[in-house]
């Protein structure tokens, strides 16, 4: 079960902004009600017409918190423009289909602050002039997020807050189902697998309508910027990457901890006991392994992480316990990623299983001498050649593992392994897609 960080509300940063302050988070089972939400954040004020919120979002510098960090105002503007150009009413989708097994921040946000997300969804719908709003969630591993959202929507209906009716939807429990085009395909009645771009979904998305897909955390930030303004938003974070973000942090005990941090926080403040020979995974399973020496010098923002070829992604920071083997963990995750390929694109379909098999060989010890060069060659072959970023993200993870665990590879070639504990640490769902029904 996820625990919300016990760090007290910080007087200097005013965090947490999105999650309830720790005192009330302790009584997590009590459903957050609309009155408490309005008392803390103020009432939801509409802007009166489309477009007017976009300038504030641009001034705030809010970027998408689903992983890609794309500027939110640019997507809003693109959808508004496409709607005007094509005279078609757009659709807004709140993306809570958090399919990264290592992340739990979106489910936690929906569980603890559903009204903030729903406020943001209404404001985003107004900003682009949408008349349809959908909130898509993932099958939750631990909580019944769906019924909490139904309760929240019922309370809002009774209070007459929402101008656009909100439909709830659930994405299948697949790694790629939260990917924008996959989600749109699923909601259009098709399989939850990625599509080839162009056309962009901001132009032609759900049933051909201009479509805004925003991560649920992005929408919660948007709802607060609308109330408190861009300057307030920028009072934490860095100049280039302002604001706060939710991070899923796993330390040696393995339990995920959701914490709201300013962009630019030193990794050492999140990762716990960091030594030069530690290994830290930043950005999740499409992310990057860093060694402790790198992690000690970096902060959680894209400008800093780029120095090591890493990215913030959806805010996953995992410290590998010292008694586990990074190669075994990597092989296990890459096997999962290979099985989660939608199998649509040749290079991904052919390359990922081969990479996974070679990594399993390396992790098992005394691999063929060419196993590592095979992995390197196949990694180059699949990069940039998928309709989505699944091959690129997988390869980023694989290459960083080869680098970070280079000494461990040598050890394994000699038939040894430094790990004292052979249990897997990184969470990997047991099931994988086997039939076409698994995608729908």
């Amino acid at each position, binding site marked *: 079960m996820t625990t919300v960080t016990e760090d007290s509300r910080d007087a200097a940063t005013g965090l947490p902004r999105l999650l309830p302050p720790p005192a009330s988070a302790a009584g997590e089972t009590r459903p957050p009600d609309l009155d408490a939400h309005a008392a803390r954040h103020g009432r939801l004020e509409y802007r009166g017409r489309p477009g007017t919120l976009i300038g504030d979002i641009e001034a705030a510098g809010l970027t998408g918190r689903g992983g890609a960090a794309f500027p939110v105002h640019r997507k809003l503007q693109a959808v508004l423009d496409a709607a005007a150009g094509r005279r078609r009413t757009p659709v807004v989708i709140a993306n809570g289909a958090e399919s990264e097994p290592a992340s739990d921040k979106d489910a936690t946000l929906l569980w603890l602050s559903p009204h903030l997300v729903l406020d943001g969804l209404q404001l985003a719908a107004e900003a682009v002039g949408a008349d349809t709003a959908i909130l898509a969630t993932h099958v939750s591993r631990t909580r019944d997020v769906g019924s909490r959202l139904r309760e929240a929507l019922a309370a809002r209906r009774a209070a007459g807050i929402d101008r656009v009716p909100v439909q709830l939807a659930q994405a299948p429990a697949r790694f790629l189902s939260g990917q924008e085009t996959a989600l749109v395909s699923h909601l259009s009645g098709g399989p939850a697998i990625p599509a080839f771009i162009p056309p962009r979904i901001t132009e032609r998305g759900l049933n051909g309508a201009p479509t805004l897909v925003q991560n649920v955390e992005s929408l919660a930030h948007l709802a607060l910027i609308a109330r408190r303004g861009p300057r307030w938003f920028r009072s934490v974070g860095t100049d280039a990457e302002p604001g706060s973000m939710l991070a899923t942090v796993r330390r040696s005990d393995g339990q995920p901890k959701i914490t709201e941090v300013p962009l630019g926080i030193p990794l050492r403040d999140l990762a716990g006991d960091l030594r030069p020979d530690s290994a830290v995974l930043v950005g999740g399973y499409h992310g990057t392994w860093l060694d402790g020496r790198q992690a000690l010098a970096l902060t959680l923002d894209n400008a800093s992480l780029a120095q090591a070829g890493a990215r913030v992604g959806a805010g996953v920071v995992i410290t590998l316990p010292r008694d586990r083997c990074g190669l075994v963990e990597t092989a296990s995750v890459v096997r999962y990623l290979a099985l989660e390929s939608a199998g649509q*694109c*040749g*290079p991904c379909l*052919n*390359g990922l299983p081969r990479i996974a098999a070679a990594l399993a060989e390396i992790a098992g010890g005394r691999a063929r001498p060419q196993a590592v060069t095979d992995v390197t060659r196949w990694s180059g072959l699949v990069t940039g*050649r*998928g*309709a989505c970023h699944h091959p690129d993200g997988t390869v980023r993870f694989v290459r960083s593992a080869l680098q970070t665990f280079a000494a461990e590879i040598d050890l394994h070639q000699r038939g040894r392994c430094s790990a004292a504990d052979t249990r897997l640490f990184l969470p990997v769902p047991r099931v994988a897609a086997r039939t076409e029904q698994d995608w729908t």
Partner: protein
Amino acid sequence: MRATETAVKLLVNPIDCAAHGACAELLPEAIALDEWGYPVIDPGPLRPSLERPARKAVSACPTLALRLIRSS
């Protein structure tokens, strides 16, 4: 003539591509096949002299996965 105005490049839709390999046969100057038979396209704009064979390669693709697009 400004190259940016007329530059075209090849784009393969990796979902539609089924590794028939006709493109690489007709346009080996710009398209190679990987070890599984899928096309690897030279990055960057296409040489103007290759435009005509490129159009042939596009129309020869059995799954219509290859496109010639204007790159600005």
